[in-house]
């Protein structure tokens, strides 16, 4: 259970710090194409930060920069700094595995592995060398409880993760991400493939999770951003089709008195 002890000390240390992550002058290129230009923003600890904007404006690219998932795209290049507790996650010598353990991710479509519910959640801890059955049992139960799924699956932990409903699958994926005890959770439109009731449950869950985690969410759904987030970044593409953050503020300001005309047009539904 080394992970737990470590994480808890880290958590107490970072609870003091106001900003969990910070983006400084980030530019992302795919080959010659510039996908993101001069991004600057801060991610407040234990808050929910939403990224909104029209399709193709680079929201997902930005989100994927926070756990270096852009590394997987062969010709992607990230310039600038992305700091996690003040340390650049792209610096030489930083282990990408460590970054991804501390910054977890939940995807647009539920993607449970074709394994049992238990093995889905235990997958992450096993990667980090946790083998003792009692430790795994504890972690699995704790994570599924945190994801508000325990009562629904406690009697069928050894059934396939694909046998439960889409909304349950998404909460299973959240449990899977929580099981490695991350500090930040990235959510890429986590409810867009779900029905309204499942969506509501995910949103309630996010409110619960932000007590212990820092959450970053990309969403197409403006009401969702307004309902759940504390801060909102509004993105747009410039004339070279590169994405940029045109306004970043507390969510209530973005939705009630936006400073940028384009933000106002977007959040009031006039375009986008």
């Amino acid at each position: 259970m080394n992970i737990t002890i470590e994480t808890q000390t880290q958590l107490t240390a970072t609870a003091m710090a106001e900003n969990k992550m910070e983006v400084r002058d980030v530019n992302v290129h795919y080959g010659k194409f510039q996908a993101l230009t001069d991004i600057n923003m801060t991610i407040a600890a234990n808050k929910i930060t939403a990224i909104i904007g029209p399709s193709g404006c680079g929201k997902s690219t930005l989100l994927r920069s926070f756990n270096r998932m852009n590394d997987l795209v062969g010709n992607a290049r990230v310039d600038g700094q992305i700091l996690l507790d003040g340390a650049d996650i792209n610096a030489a010598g930083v282990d990408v595995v460590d970054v991804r353990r501390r910054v977890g991710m939940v995807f647009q479509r539920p993607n449970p592995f074709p394994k049992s519910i238990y093995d889905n959640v235990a997958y992450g801890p096993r990667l980090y060398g946790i083998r003792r059955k009692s430790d795994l049992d504890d972690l699995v139960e704790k994570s599924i409880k945190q994801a508000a799924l325990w009562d629904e699956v406690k009697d069928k932990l050894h059934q396939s993760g694909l046998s439960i409903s889409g909304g349950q699958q998404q909460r299973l994926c959240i449990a899977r991400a929580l099981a490695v005890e991350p500090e930040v959770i990235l959510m890429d439109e986590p409810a867009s493939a779900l029905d309204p009731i499942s969506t509501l449950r995910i949103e309630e869950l996010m409110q619960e999770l932000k007590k212990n985690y820092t959450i970053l969410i990309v969403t197409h759904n403006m009401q969702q951003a307004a309902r759940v987030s504390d801060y909102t970044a509004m993105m747009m593409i410039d004339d070279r089709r590169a994405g940029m953050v045109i306004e970043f503020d507390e969510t209530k300001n973005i939705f009630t008195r936006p400073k940028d005309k384009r933000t106002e047009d977007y959040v009031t539904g006039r375009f986008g």
Partner: protein
Amino acid sequence: MTASTHFQILIEKNQAKLSARRKVTNAAMLALTGLMTLLALVPLFWIVGYVIYKGGQYINLDFFINLPRPLGMEGGGVRHAIEGTLVITALAAVFAVPPGILAAFYAARYPNTPLGIALRFSTDVLSGVPSIVIGLFAYAIIVKPMGNYSALAGGLAMAFLMLPTIIRTTEEMIKLVPHNLREGSLALGAAEWKTSISVLFPAALNGIVTGFLLALARAAGETAPLLFTALGNERYDIRTIINNGIAQKQGVFQILGRIVDQPADSLPLTLWKYAQMPYPERVAQSWAVALVLMILVLLVNIFARLWVESRKRRLQG
């Protein structure tokens, strides 16, 4: 207005005739496609039925458990060919599966690298090479240097034959695994190799097994690559090899070596040889061999289906 009423009158006049014609055409086409479907089924049932009819007359338990009797004598079986087929296909699987599956993982992950492109190109070429050429190649690289025909050489020739099918189906199956499963694993911090083994491989396993068995069934039915590799051996008898080995206090590897290091027969090879012999007994037996071969391939397919179905049910819950 006049034109449209004019047309309306014409259409109404033709309505009955056209409708009847449409119905007739429809019925005719339906009958034609149905007839052709039946026609396409004829060779299948004919072949299977004829083999069962001709082979069934000769088949009995003795045929499976006995070795061939000397020419001209009644009875005897083809245990040597069944054992040889099993040994040769098992060797082929051992040689072809590990490199085939690993290469497919590489090609699926890095399709546009020089190595990935070379692999795809050479599997295409290899799958087009006539099987007898592959047999000749195995003769040159195994039989000649070793100085004798062997099950090992036959297994290797079969492996070359299976390799392209295994690589291509595995590659396709891995590509069919949803991209976000892979990302889900990587986002938890898993390395690429770990993701491949723990997520991609299980997710693609049903298709990989199906592809492997198709390749195996094809190899088990091949004759040409064995002509100058396994050669044929009417006295191939695993039980005797093992018993002799134990009597001479040989180790497991020595005994295994003896099993693969001598000429072996296979069902298609036996069929081919028996069918052209001037002894009615042997010709009759060749039909029975055909039936055994068909049953063997069918059994493999049924097992594969059952396994894949039960696994699917388990995974979908």
